[in-house]
């Protein structure tokens, strides 16, 4: 699974460094290092008023904040991996 976090200016100011950190931690906690490829991306073109844009394979999720991070990770990362 490919997860790309937007590190472009708009997302950067809305907290992409925090989201990257949370993702790294979560991947480690769930022992997904072999399954998940984390990388950065300079703007997916879906800039949102709040939060950061994260692309999981072909699905784009906008507005990820540290508050809704767990929900995002469970629904769109863990669930997807389990379904595979």
């Amino acid at each position: 699974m490919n997860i790309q976090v937007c590190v472009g200016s708009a997302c950067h100011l809305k907290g992409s460094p925090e989201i990257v950190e949370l993702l790294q931690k979560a991947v480690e906690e769930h022992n997904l290092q072999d399954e998940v490829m984390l990388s950065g991306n300079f703007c997916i073109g879906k800039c949102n008023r709040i939060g950061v844009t994260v692309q999981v394979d072909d699905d784009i999720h906008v507005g990820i904040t540290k508050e809704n991070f767990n929900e995002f990770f469970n629904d769109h990362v863990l669930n997807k991996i389990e379904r595979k």
Partner: protein
Amino acid sequence: MRKFDTKVQHLKYKVLREVAKNAWNDTLLDNILNIPETISPGTTSTMRCCVYKERAILSERVKLAMGGDRENPNVIEVIDIACDECPSAGYVVTDSCRGCLAHRCEDVCKRGAITFDQNHVAHIDKSKCVECGQCAKVCPFSAIANRRRPCQNACKVKAISFNEKNSATIDNNKCIACGSCVYQCPWGAISEKSFILDVIDIIKRSNNNKNYKVYAVVAPSISSQFTYAKLGQVITGLKELGFHTVIEAALGADMVALSEAKELTEKGFLTSSCCPAFVTYIKQNFPDLVPFISHNPSPMTAISQYIKKTDENAKVVFIGPCTAKKNEFRQPEVRPYVDSVITFEELQALFDSKDVDITMLDEGVLDNASYYGRIFARCGGLSDAVSQAIKEQGIENFVLKAFSCDGIEECRVALLKKSKNLIDANFIEGMACVGGCIGGAGCLTHGEKNKAEVDKYGREAFEKTIKDALGVLEI
């Protein structure tokens, strides 16, 4: 609203704007011969002896705007017919000489080149004079002037001489493409090749960034430019032109600072590699010092490499103050990462070619780099950043002794000292332009407040340390 320092820049801008306008509309081939007359209409000349000469020179400018002479590898070119063949007599006695009693000029001249006529007025015997300028310094009436051509005065690497027709000519083996002569020639007879047509082509072929994405990488000196608008409006303007997104070259500077600090502590002595004109200068004049040139890519190249790693189809256009970057990006080791380079002057022409009035736009955001990456734009910034990077990496037992050279003349002195082992420094920061990149020839304006603007923009960075700025990329 004043966009440029001089009317020469304004004229160059008008040519670029017309060429760009036609290129966007696919009408360049139809209108190319009409551009000179569009800019210089009617029958009365405003700049030269006649309107026809004006138009002939404008045709040459159109050529440069379209990429210039393909046979000439140098990005800096002379427009022969525009060169006014300025007098170049060297030191001459002017009519301010009062024929005084003291004759300090005669005493100071070691060559005995000063003579006096029956009115006691001084004359310089050119067969003896070596142009040292001592006589001019001691004359109490400032009656001795140095009549050198402005281009020659500007070119500190002595690459400019005169050909048999008495117009200026550039020795490509000495030229470092700093652009100093471009900015200083009062006739606009020396100019740089433009790659705006390539940029327009890249944007058009992207089909609104659907075929591939076009990234604008902007140099940190942009903070001192486009002062009639807000920086955020420039960012939005770039997107209006068709760029997918805008990224700070300063983030590449953060990367460079970190690896340069490592390389420095390993090797013990380094000269910086950010300024392409400085690097060329070392290669041409101090071959023995070449091994000391930092192996790091420039910030432009470092960030472009990163962009192409995240998006392999990306096209990258660097926008900066620098004419030498136009030579750098065509080097084989840089070419795969940077697709084209334009200056702030050319960006202004691009905005106006599409009638993008940036003062009317919303403010976009630009934030990738740290304070330290951003201050690379001014002299001394690189050394500050390397010092910070040494600290952040917890490198002990290494004391940075940086020597920041402000302009190519100071670079020359530092390199000379190093070649004779007379310098008490382990890091030479070389900036070919006085003031650093904010003094670059491709800047729209050069003001005294520019350094303060760069520092202010640096302080506004969201990330305060280099590692914070790069942390987000270490995934």
